[in-house]
């Protein structure tokens, strides 16, 4: 049989397959639109890969099953969409507090509340500023295409293990539902991954391993928290990812992530054909956020326009980076509406030339 190089997959299916390729052998989830295909794909394919699939009784149970699987040393993942992620935030805080590697996919939909099932980016604050209780961060990776979703799911597992914490892949309803050809990566055999010495595997011939986020003594908790903060500084130093597109000579730059960046790229091409020097800065890691590249850009462009499918969330980070060095307007649509390249171009024209 000829080797199949490319397969046509929905974003949800591709992210599921990427997790299996990454050596993930346990998935726990609960149905919610628009991420159902991810759970369904796992139910069909995880057992064949020799892994564990459970449709949990709730998102809360699912994330706690991840806690257990991660504590036992297994690569593990859960996925959901906005309201379900709200339920998971308790567990995510415990996972961060117990220094456990875990990948969480959020296929964001319109909110707040039940909102709707259309694509949105209203969970940016929740993803990047904590969401759950206590001082913690997640690495948050925001793909803008399905091939990139595959790449970032693979990376998410690697980073979760390296830094021992939860990593979120922040997609949206559009990325979850649409189909694109993808080239699947080489599969990682979980047996070849480095053993996790801290994991719960039975205290056989060694001291007991304890996995916990509980430190009653404030001095001890402070010590644990400070150590984790140091790890976050390492992450900020090493794991900032972003892409610049036609920014070399740009006079106006659009800052956008995820699906919105993909649409903005078309707007850049349209602007260029009209002689408007527009560029794009696309954060790939929204935490850690690419403050430095934005700071650098703000020294040579007049306007950095942030475009999001929300009421203005990432724009706060853009403004932190830019300070007062450039104009930092915002354009967004709410309710699951998706701005078109024309919408963006019209907005850009208010600031260009």
């Amino acid at each position, binding site marked *: 049989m000829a080797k199949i190089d490319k397969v046509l997959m929905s974003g949800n299916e591709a992210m599921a397959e990427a997790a299996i390729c990454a050596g993930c052998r346990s998935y726990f989830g609960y149905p919610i639109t628009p991420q159902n295909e991810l759970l369904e794909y796992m139910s069909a394919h995880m057992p064949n890969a020799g892994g564990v699939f459970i449709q949990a009784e709730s998102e809360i149970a699912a994330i706690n099953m991840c*806690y257990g699987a991660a504590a036992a040393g297994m690569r593990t993942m859960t996925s959901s969409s906005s309201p379900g992620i709200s339920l998971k935030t308790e567990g995510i805080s415990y996972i961060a507090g117990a220094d456990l590697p875990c990948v969480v996919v959020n296929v964001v939909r319109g909110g707040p509340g039940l909102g709707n099932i259309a694509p949105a980016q209203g969970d940016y604050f929740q993803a990047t500023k904590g969401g759950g209780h206590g001082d913690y961060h997640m690495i948050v990776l925001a793909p803008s295409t399905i091939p990139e979703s595959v790449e970032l799911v693979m990376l998410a597992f690697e980073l979760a293990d390296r830094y021992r914490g939860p990593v979120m892949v922040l997609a949206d309803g559009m990325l979850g539902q649409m189909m694109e050809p993808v080239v699947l990566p080489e599969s990682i055999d979980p047996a070849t991954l480095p053993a996790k010495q801290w994991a719960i595997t039975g205290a056989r011939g060694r001291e007991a391993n304890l996995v916990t986020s509980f430190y009653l003594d404030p001095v001890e908790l402070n010590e644990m928290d400070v150590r984790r903060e140091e790890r976050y500084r390492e992450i900020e130093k090493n794991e900032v990812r972003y892409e610049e597109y036609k920014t070399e000579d740009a006079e106006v730059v659009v800052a956008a992530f995820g699906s919105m960046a993909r649409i903005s790229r078309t707007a850049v091409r349209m602007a260029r054909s009209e002689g408007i020097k527009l560029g794009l800065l696309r954060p790939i890691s929204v935490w850690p956020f690419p403050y430095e590249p934005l700071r650098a850009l703000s020294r040579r462009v007049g306007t950095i326009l942030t475009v999001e499918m929300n009421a203005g969330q990432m724009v706060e980070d853009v403004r932190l980076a830019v300070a007062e060095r450039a104009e930092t307007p915002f354009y967004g649509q709410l309710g699951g509406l998706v701005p078109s390249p024309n919408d963006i171009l019209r907005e850009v024209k208010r600031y260009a030339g």
Partner: protein
Amino acid sequence: MPVSTENMVRVFGRPESLNESAFSYCPGCHHGVVTRMIAQAIDELNIRERTVVIAPVGCSVSMYQWFRCDGTQAAHGRACAIATGIKRVNPDLIVFTYQGDGALAAIGTAESIHAANRGENITVVFINNQIYGMTGGQMAPTTLLGQWATSCPEGRDGRLAGHPIRFAEMVAQLDAPVYVTRQSLFDQKRLIAAGRAIKKAFRYQVEEKGYSLVEVLTNCPTNWRMGTLEANKHLAEVVVNTFPLGDFVDRG
């Protein structure tokens, strides 16, 4: 006069699976008895090196630190979901949760019922002392009708605050569980029976039979505002009327 131990035989000692830590329970509390019984069962079944302790939120929050076993600590009510995650990815481990009435029968009802319904091969030890101990004596889902608690100062009124939940009976309605029992500790006979029930629940897991729940009616002298003898009498004469003792399911 000092007593010589030379000709004595050791008949009782600290279980091997416990380390040197002191329990943090109040004097007279039954928690310590149940914790010790678990350690003894682990010793007798020779499973210390395979056992995973899942501590709850509550008076036994530090429990995982007292065993010479791997362990973790669960968010309030989530222990059975965590147990599921651990057991499914590593079925060789012997996984038990130890939970109070708040964790098992209030905030963690969903996790507790569904782990039982899936027949997870885990052991759940349920401490039913009819009160929230560590937070200072608030009403539990198992608080008796008319019983005083800091959050029902006029006594529990079933019309407003619901009725005591009989969790073992609820779980016994499900098809999957292999062993569901309610035990108590108020006299010697009950102590022996409870110890045997706990050991049986662990043995069933070792034998890969499936899910077990051992509910133990226990006291809380501190928050019941009772002496230990009075608390034992209360268990034997009052509490058992709402929570009958015995095996509800034994499919072992």
